[in-house]
């Protein structure tokens, strides 16, 4: 019989990084090809499955940054280092770094939207010579919700990083953190040639909509903007139908879409 995609494999938790009370990164053993922006189905017998995007790629490991918000993810949080989880994947197209090489890149990420794009940011932080310039604008609801705080400091050495929270008292927030929605910070981005600049937008639906509008207003071309979509997925392989939007399956054709396609998608 053909390979059975539904049967998960065991993966060991080698490290757990706590970001907030309900958001941890689980470093999982995985040998195989994987790209930033792809996702795995975390598959817990008795509890079900949840699609989780890859937030980092190491040597023989992948990072899955998980928010504890449902039946499956609650159960994931009951596991500790050395335990095993069932996974299947990776699925989806992921980001193609070649789309951004040699260009000025702006990444706009809201909340856990930073997870799927973290692999891209981290790659260009390590290889700043591959892009003409890079800016990360990342927003969170409050200082307590900030993810990858350690990374942000490191990334600052090789790119512009604008960290912002929706609202906070001055005393509560880190010094490097600004206040306001990510869209309010878009005009601050310094670019040489906007017509050639590229952007990635990932986050909650409303944040993505207004961020893309903001970028278009600045002069970005539609074909130079990429978005990553989040939908319910039961199979990850184009069968269950939950993630279908129009003629695309987010699990097969996405989750990363060029905006020229993304703007035509009507749920």
């Amino acid at each position: 019989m053909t390979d059975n995609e539904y049967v998960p494999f065991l993966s060991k938790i080698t490290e757990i990084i706590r970001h907030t009370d309900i958001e941890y990164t689980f470093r999982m053993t995985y040998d195989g090809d994987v790209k930033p922006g792809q996702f795995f189905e975390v598959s817990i017998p008795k509890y079900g499955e949840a699609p989780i995007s890859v937030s980092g790629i190491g040597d023989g490991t992948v990072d899955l940054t998980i928010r504890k918000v449902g039946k499956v993810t609650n159960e994931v949080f009951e596991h500790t280092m050395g335990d095993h989880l069932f996974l299947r994947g990776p699925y989806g197209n992921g980001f193609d770094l070649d789309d951004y090489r040699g260009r000025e890149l702006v990444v706009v990420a809201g909340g856990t939207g930073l997870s799927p794009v973290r692999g891209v940011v981290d790659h260009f932080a390590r290889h700043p010579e591959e892009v003409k310039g890079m800016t990360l604008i990342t927003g969170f609801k409050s200082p307590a919700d900030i993810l990858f705080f350690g990374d942000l400091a490191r990334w600052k050495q090789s790119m512009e990083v604008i960290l912002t929270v929706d609202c906070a008292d001055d005393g509560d927030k880190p010094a490097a953190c600004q206040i306001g929605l990510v869209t309010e910070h878009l005009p601050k981005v310094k670019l040489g040639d906007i017509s050639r600049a590229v952007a990635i937008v990932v986050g909650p639906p409303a944040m993505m909509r207004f961020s893309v509008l903001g970028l278009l207003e600045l002069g970005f071309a539609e074909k130079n903007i990429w978005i990553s979509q989040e939908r319910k997925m039961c199979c990850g392989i184009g069968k269950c139908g939950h993630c279908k939007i129009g003629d695309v399956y987010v699990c097969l054709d996405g989750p990363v879409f060029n905006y020229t396609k993304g703007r035509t998608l009507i749920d």
Partner: protein
Amino acid sequence: MGFKLSREAFDAVLQSWTDDYVLFAPKRFEQGGIYSDTDCIRYGQVQAVDEIVFDSKSLYSFKEALLPVSETLFFFTEETVKEADPPKKGAIIFLRSCDLHGLKRLDEIYLRNGPEDAYYRRLRDRVQFVLMGCPHSFENCFCVSMGTNQATDYAISVDVEGDGFLVDCKSEAWAERITPRAEAELDVTPRHVTENAVTVNIPETLTIQVASSRIWDEYDNRCIDCGRCNFVCPTCTCFTMQDLFYTENGRVGERRRIWASCMVDGFTDVAGGGSYRKKNGERMRFKVLHKVYDFKVRTGSHMCVGCGRCDDVCPEYISFSNSVNKLDQAMKEVSGR
């Protein structure tokens, strides 16, 4: 190769299949209809030709033979997974032309849209199809408009002829079983309809812009998001995973997939409370355009096969064919803005 067979002779052929195959055909479930004091014609296992209903349309399609309503994928303990065994026998499915075209849509999703589905593949490889001819159109059928009124890729066809049957056999192995039992050999073409009372017109100019038409609004209230249209449809293929464990604190259980409906609440729910298409009109639009627009964009053929079962089953008397026929006006509405 065509034959005329008596009822007894066809039954004997059918019995000869049961060693290797389970037979699925439309059968009568008394008092099981959607109205009081009516029967339900739907698919089930049959042992004899007398159980097969030839003179009515089945309310549900054949798809449950290939995609069970609830299908166990694997069994699990804490750290082991064991794939569920396939059925011991193959299957022979009796179905009409529209459903045989529906099979191609199922194949498209389960064999070609992304990686192959192992569970579908293992059943599909062991299924033979018996085409039931249509002497006339049934209520709500619009197969002619969808180009699905005739089918050729069957193992054998069967048409009721007086007290017996006319059969066209494309399988040499089966022809050997039939020949000694036949009353006569003759040319047989399976009966098919060339017109339906219902016709649909899918505008050539249809684009996704039609999503913004006001025609969808009427379904916000008329549709009660029961999902029956999806469950009777031969081409609806969506499912949801379901885990269950055998005892309250047990460590063993199984994962199943069960039919899902894009018309029912919860279909798009994401973790954290988000969902898409909250209004029933939006869900109707999503379903209608999948059936007669975006599946074709993706695969080259329409998903809908014109069986009309969705119209047969709707408790609110919503007509899918009517909604398709409004698309022309809807396109004019959105392009005129």
